[in-house]
């Protein structure tokens, strides 16, 4: 019991002031009652109007409040399909700097969309304050209602409540920061040429996933401060670097001295972009700033990458709950119900043997938690003694706030759900000629399947663990990265290409070593210093 409690507190702030002083309101113990039933349900034509969206939003908001969903203010924006594709193309952000890869994304999306191979997402929602939700013009009224419930009250309350978002992102300043980034990059293009900026961004993007601080929360900065400090930062960083490289390269035969020389970095560093920003010898100040911009944006997306199941599941659970509640209260007509339920069913469809659909899994898990609270079985009481039979609203809020996908699954995936999804785990060992079924949804396998699935969502097992290992300070200034293998899994062959990007940023030769569990190097890659 205490063990479970402990696990659940991982990553939780010790006091509420720690996450930038934002306090969390106590979740409601139970739903507030409806003040009075409406005399008739809301109009339900298939075409939306501004007035109608307004009316629906009012009811959805009131319903969400009765459930105690705490959100940022909402800003609804009506956009066209083309604008939706635009938004898609720049990683969902309303503004972003220019880069060819976003053009590629746009072209691919447009092509698929025009050929009817895919529908566009019904919504995009931005983690900002106010929270911006895009409603597509083509949606029917029923779809708009679904989107408002899903994005404005589901995702929005997740952004505001989940600990990772509270720690890592600052919703109030992201739009300003993106505008700043866009302008800064545009200025750089003007001053240094599009190609130089593009090459730099390419290299930064290659390392974007390795530009995240996993342990240290970034200081909250207003944009004004950020700007004011830009100059200081450039100056100071350059000075530091000059200091680091002050020593002239010496001949290698001074063995003793080389031995006693301090190691740099003293500890391995996993934030490669940060290391480059602070230490790459040849980067110009503007290049450092661009590295920083990419790093900051990577940091902003880091929580999203870790909470896919939770976030989508939470939003799906709430649109389902809110719209059902509205129906029960007499706000929604039957036709409207049938229409949004059809979309809902598509969203949570799960193909057998395919990859798990995060919407389906997340939705099922929150729904299951509610069930465990309300109608626990004997099995539930054994597995979840602390939540079985408790009030479902505070339990669900607790689950939303304090976990990421990996720990959420580790904590809440129930045997009941594993049976329902018929989950099983397969081991693919390079040395064996067959796949092996390691566990299935039975009494002896629940624990194993749950752990295996939890690990599957752990970013550190999904992405290779690569750290800055050493810099040859006195010799050729080469940078050595080290990959620590997980389950003997080698790096993908793209490593060589990525290494070229690292070399471009570092300015000198770069090496990458891959070490197995015993610490033996099994593979090496090298890229010589780029031409200057």
């Amino acid at each position, binding site marked *: 019991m205490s063990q479970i409690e402990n696990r659940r507190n991982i990553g939780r702030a010790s006091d509420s002031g720690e996450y930038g002083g934002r306090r969390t309101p106590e979740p409601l113990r139970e739903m507030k009652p409806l003040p009075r039933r409406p005399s008739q349900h809301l109009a339900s034509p298939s075409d939306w109007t501004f007035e109608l969206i307004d009316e629906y939003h009012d009811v959805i908001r009131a319903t969400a409040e009765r459930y105690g969903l705490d959100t940022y203010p909402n800003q609804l924006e009506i956009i066209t399909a083309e604008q939706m594709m635009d938004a898609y193309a720049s990683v969902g952000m309303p503004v972003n700097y220019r880069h060819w890869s976003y053009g590629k994304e746009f072209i691919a999306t447009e092509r698929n969309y025009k050929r009817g191979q895919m529908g566009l997402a019904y919504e995009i929602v931005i983690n900002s304050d106010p929270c911006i939700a895009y409603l597509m013009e083509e949606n029917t009224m029923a779809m708009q209602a679904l989107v408002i419930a899903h994005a404005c009250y589901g995702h929005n309350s997740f952004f505001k409540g989940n600990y990772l978002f509270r720690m890592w992102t600052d919703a109030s300043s992201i739009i300003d920061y993106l505008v700043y980034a866009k302008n800064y990059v545009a200025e750089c293009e003007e001053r240094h040429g599009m190609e130089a900026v593009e090459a730099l961004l390419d290299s930064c993007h290659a390392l974007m996933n390795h530009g995240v601080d996993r342990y240290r929360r970034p200081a909250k900065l207003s944009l004004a401060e950020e700007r004011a400090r830009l100059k200081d930062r450039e100056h100071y960083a350059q000075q530091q670097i000059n200091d680091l490289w002050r020593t002239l390269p010496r001949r290698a035969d001074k063995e003793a001295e080389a031995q006693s020389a301090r190691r740099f970095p003293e500890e391995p560093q996993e934030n490669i972009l940060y290391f480059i920003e602070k230490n790459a010898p040849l980067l110009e100040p503007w290049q450092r700033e661009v590295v920083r911009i990419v790093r900051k944006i990577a940091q902003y997306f880091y929580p999203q990458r870790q909470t896919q199941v939770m976030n989508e599941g939470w939003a799906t659970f709430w649109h389902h709950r809110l719209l059902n509640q509205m129906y029960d209260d007499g706000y929604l007509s039957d036709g409207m119900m049938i229409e949004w339920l059809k979309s809902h069913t598509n969203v949570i469809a799960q193909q057998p043997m395919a990859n798990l659909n995060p919407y389906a899994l997340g939705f099922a898990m929150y729904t299951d938690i509610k069930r465990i609270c309300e109608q626990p079985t004997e099995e539930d009481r054994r597995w979840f003694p602390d939540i079985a039979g408790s009030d479902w609203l505070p339990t669900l809020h607790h689950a939303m706030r304090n976990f990421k996908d990996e720990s959420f699954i580790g904590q809440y995936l129930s045997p009941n759900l594993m049976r329902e999804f018929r989950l099983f785990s397969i081991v693919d060992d390079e040395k064996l000629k067959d796949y092996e079924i390691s566990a299935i949804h039975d009494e002896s396998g629940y624990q194993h399947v749950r752990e*295996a699935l939890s690990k599957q969502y752990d970013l550190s097992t999904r992405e290779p663990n690569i750290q800055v290992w050493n810099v040859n300070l006195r010799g050729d200034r080469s940078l050595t990265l080290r990959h620590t293998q997980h389950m003997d*899994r080698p790096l993908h062959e793209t490593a060589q290409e990525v290494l070229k990007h690292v070399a471009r940023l570092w300015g000198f030769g770069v090496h990458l070593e891959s070490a197995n569990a015993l610490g033996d190097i099994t593979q090496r890659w090298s890229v010589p210093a780029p031409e200057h």
Partner: protein
Amino acid sequence: MLQQIIDRRLSGKNKSIGNRERFLRRHKEQIREAVRRAVDGRGIRDMERGEDVHIPKKDLSEPVFGHGEGGVREVVRPGNTEHVKGDRVPKPKGGGQGQGGGKASDSGEGEDDFVFHLSKEEFMQVFFEDLALPNLARTTLADTPEYKTHRAGYTSDGTPTNLHVVRSMRGALGRRIALGMGKRRELHELEERLELLKREDASKPDVKALIAETEARIALLKERIARIPFLDPIDLRFRSRVRVPVPTTRAVMFCLMDVSGSMDESRKDLAKRFFILLYLFLTRHYEKIDVVFIRHHTQAQEVDEQNFFHATETGGTVVSSALVLMEQIIRERYSPTEWNIYGAQASDGDNWHHDSGRCRELLAEKILPLCRYFAYVQVAEQEQNLWEEYCKLADEGYPFAMRKAVEVAQIYPVFRDLFKKEGAST
């Protein structure tokens, strides 16, 4: 809580255009290649259309560190209906699970290709770029105004061929009626009086004198009336025709190409690009363009476009055969009064040497008088007798121009040069 609904539909359209431009710029080489291929495969009349561009996936990849095949992996999947713990399932042959199964393909939409559509404008831009276009300014041909005459009523002077007889006679009749009116009235009165006088006693001397006087007067009047001219120069009316400048609507373009053995694919490609430019240029001036393809070795033949550029039949060279055929086709099908005739000839300049002089004569005497413009492009460096003979023509002020182009990039400058506005400096 203040809620807002913002209508963004009208603003910020096409926000990705900057990203698209960057994408196109980055893949310029592949796009150029695609345009080049499209130009090869495409008919001259079918230029202004977009094109699908295939870019190999690897050229588009944004590499990141990732896990490769191998080692130990454990995945959880849904939907187990048959397996129990410890079951073994054979791995699929060749490669691992679900990855790297795609086969690269250089044509068609293999899953390793990224395919997108180049718009018409983008296509033309790349096409012109390929031709080393300094900027997309379009040359205008020396705009010789085109006149059309049509009837514009009648005038009082003109040539006898244009005399309008009925109209002139009508005028004359009117004039005769108008001029004789008073006299005829008087004549009538006198004749009536004469009748009355004749009924009276003719023996009276004063009556007799009156009759004589009246008769004399009548005779005078009759004579006078008879003297009114039947047709006066003033009556003449001529058909009037005015010349009105009109945009002409029809043009025919003759493509003449040497297909002797020395015209290899790359030379044909140069010629094709030249013809394409001419075609694009003419389509901006005329509503309707006919294209006549004439290929020749020792004999000339009218062919379709496919045969023109791709047939491999070959032989010696008699250039004049093509010119003879062209003249013949003009006479049969394209009256110079109705059609604007353009000729473009591409050759490597290698001709049966007795023939070159004849070519010059044919052009000077038969063809150039019928043409608005005739351009000769030599797709080889060496100057031979055909070049020399043609040089004489160029000096004599015919609507004729000749240039050499040996690389694709030279085509556009040459074209521009050939079709530069009259009087404008090169």
